């Protein structure tokens, strides 16, 4: 263990996978320049050669299809999209092909037609880049059967979930967020995996459960700090995996606290926060003291100016405010629903 940044942890996972398994290769835009991937892939081309670290033409569709085909032919590709927005050009190979393939050809994961593929997509927004360079589209992929989706928020998970994605027999979408690249934390030196589908409880608490995804999981931790100063004891769950997601851990926590705030960096309507809120409302129905609150992006494209960006992206303050509102609404503490 030693402290790494999130970006360094991603790079280390790549380097270890490339070193350990000759079938692993990376393909996508920006692999030979720090411009696209920050330090998260830096120097891998020099270390492992340009035949296995392949900076590609501007052809998202065919490059992603190449990765799908290479996976079917026995390699272990990581296809890299330096921005999620660009990946919209690759929906056919991802959704029609990779996600359906193994089911279509036999109906069980791990058959000869499995697609052992990692699709890595970066959420890269802010900085006055505007609406086409800001989109966090994870909910679209969470909806697709046959795909797994992971979204780490810490350096350790950034490494562990990438290695777990690679170990998975099916296609896994790995989404990282540039806003997290500088976060530091302890990361195991050896290769390690974090089980896909398992949430992490970042803080135990009894008054309200804050459930966060990726960047917003980090904001939930900050929100819990704010609330603590106000005497509110928040539990924080970092979802880490979006599909499958850890309904058990979340439902158990909310059943205990009676209150839930779901924080997501995607748009609100039909977003990941909707799925999580709906499922909590169903599973913790008898114990909910107030409606599940959602903190997500407003249903508009992203603005560009710094002032509007500040208003657009919610964070710890908004999460804390949502938690406060829940507590006010159900001020009397634990009140059980009375069944007839």
């Amino acid at each position, binding site marked *: 263990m030693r402290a790494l940044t999130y970006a360094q942890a991603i790079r280390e996972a790549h380097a270890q996978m490339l070193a350990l398994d000759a079938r692993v*290769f990376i393909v996508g835009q920006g692999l030979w320049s720090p411009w696209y991937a920050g330090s998260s892939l830096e120097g891998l081309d020099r270390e492992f050669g340009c*035949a*296995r670290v*392949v900076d*590609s*033409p501007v*052809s998202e*569709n*065919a*490059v*992603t*299809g*190449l*990765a*799908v*085909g*290479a*996976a*079917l*032919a*026995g*390699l272990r*590709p990581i296809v890299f999209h330096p921005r999620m927005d660009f990946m919209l050009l690759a929906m*056919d*190979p991802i959704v*029609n*092909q990779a996600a359906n*393939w*193994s*089911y*279509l*050809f*036999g*109906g*069980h*994961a791990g058959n*000869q*037609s499995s697609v052992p593929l990692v699709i890595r997509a970066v959420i890269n927004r802010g900085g006055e880049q505007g609406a086409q360079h800001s989109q966090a589209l994870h909910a679209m992929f969470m909806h697709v*059967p*046959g795909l797994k989706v992971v979204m780490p928020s810490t350096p350790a998970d950034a490494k562990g979930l990438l290695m777990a994605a690679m170990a998975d027999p*099916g296609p896994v979408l790995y989404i990282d967020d540039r806003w997290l690249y500088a976060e530091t934390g302890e990361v195991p030196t050896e290769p390690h995996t974090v089980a896909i589908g398992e949430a992490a409880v970042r803080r135990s608490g009894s008054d309200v459960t804050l459930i966060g995804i990726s960047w917003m999981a980090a904001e939930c931790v900050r929100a819990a700090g704010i609330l603590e100063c106000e005497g509110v004891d928040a539990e924080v769950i970092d979802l880490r995996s979006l599909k*499958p997601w850890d309904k058990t851990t979340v439902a158990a926590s909310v059943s205990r606290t009676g209150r839930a705030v779901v924080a997501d960096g995607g748009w609100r309507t039909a977003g990941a926060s909707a799925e999580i809120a709906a499922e909590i409302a169903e599973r913790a129905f008898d114990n909910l003291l107030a409606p599940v609150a959602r903190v997500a992006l407003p249903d508009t494209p992203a603005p560009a100016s710094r002032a509007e960006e500040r208003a657009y992206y919610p964070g710890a303050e908004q999460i804390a405010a949502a938690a406060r509102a829940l507590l006010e609404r159900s001020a009397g503490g634990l009140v059980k629903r009375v069944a007839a």
Partner: protein
Amino acid sequence: MTLIRHAEERIAEMVESGEVGCPCHLYIGQEAIAAGVCAALTATDTVWGGHRSHGHYLAKGGSLAALFAEVLLKSTGCAGGRGGSMHLAAVEVGILGTVPIVAGTVPLAVGAAFAYKLRGEDTVAVAFFGDGALEEGHVHESMNLAALYRLPLVLICENNLYASHLHWGERRVADNFDRAGEFHSVPGERVDGNDVTAVHAAARAAVERARRGEGPTLIECRTFRWRGHVGASFDLDVGVERRGELADWLPRDPLLRVSEELIEHGVADLAQREQAIDARIAGAVEAARAAPQPQPQPEEALCAH
């Protein structure tokens, strides 16, 4: 070729009788292409196809029984009864997959070729696709990637002049399909797709070039499908009238040419060979009929996906 023809005629009957329910795009009239190309491949070379791939599957050595079972959506089908006619695979003989998204497998074939090259194998990947597929941009992206990385890939464009109801002249300006890869430095060639010898010769040259590490080749095989775009009927199903064209093409039956040559070369037992094929087909149909349907899986198991 006879096997493909007779198997598909049997499937056509089963479509007409209603026994086969899934959409079937018949290859009848185009058999020389699959036969000629696959004869140029080793067992480890791989092929990729689309919605009209019964021929590719059989020519590459896919099991006849598993084809009929798949078309009847039985669990013994080559896709476990989860795909149907448009979804054929037999990884053990190098059929990596055929799926009905037009041009969907072309980038995948590029990826397979990429894998063979990276591993230093001399395996070749073949992508079969139609004239319509060249209208999908990612086919052009794919050709660029294949040329740039000098991949062992052979692109077979089966130009049957139509994409469903539209003649090529309604979809593009020039009849220059063989030059589709020129901009991306993929050399192209046009052959008579109804002449198995010509197809085979072109395919062999392209496969050898690929094995030598010289990169991808495009072969346009000019042909015509006899039946409708989908289903068993003779093309009245998509609102087009192609009777005249069909009359021109029927005499160019790829099978007829081969039979004539075989007879010339003194092969006398054609009728007997056809009988044997028909017996195999009958057996495959019976086995498929007797096989169980795939079991609806409990959601748990399905959710593993």
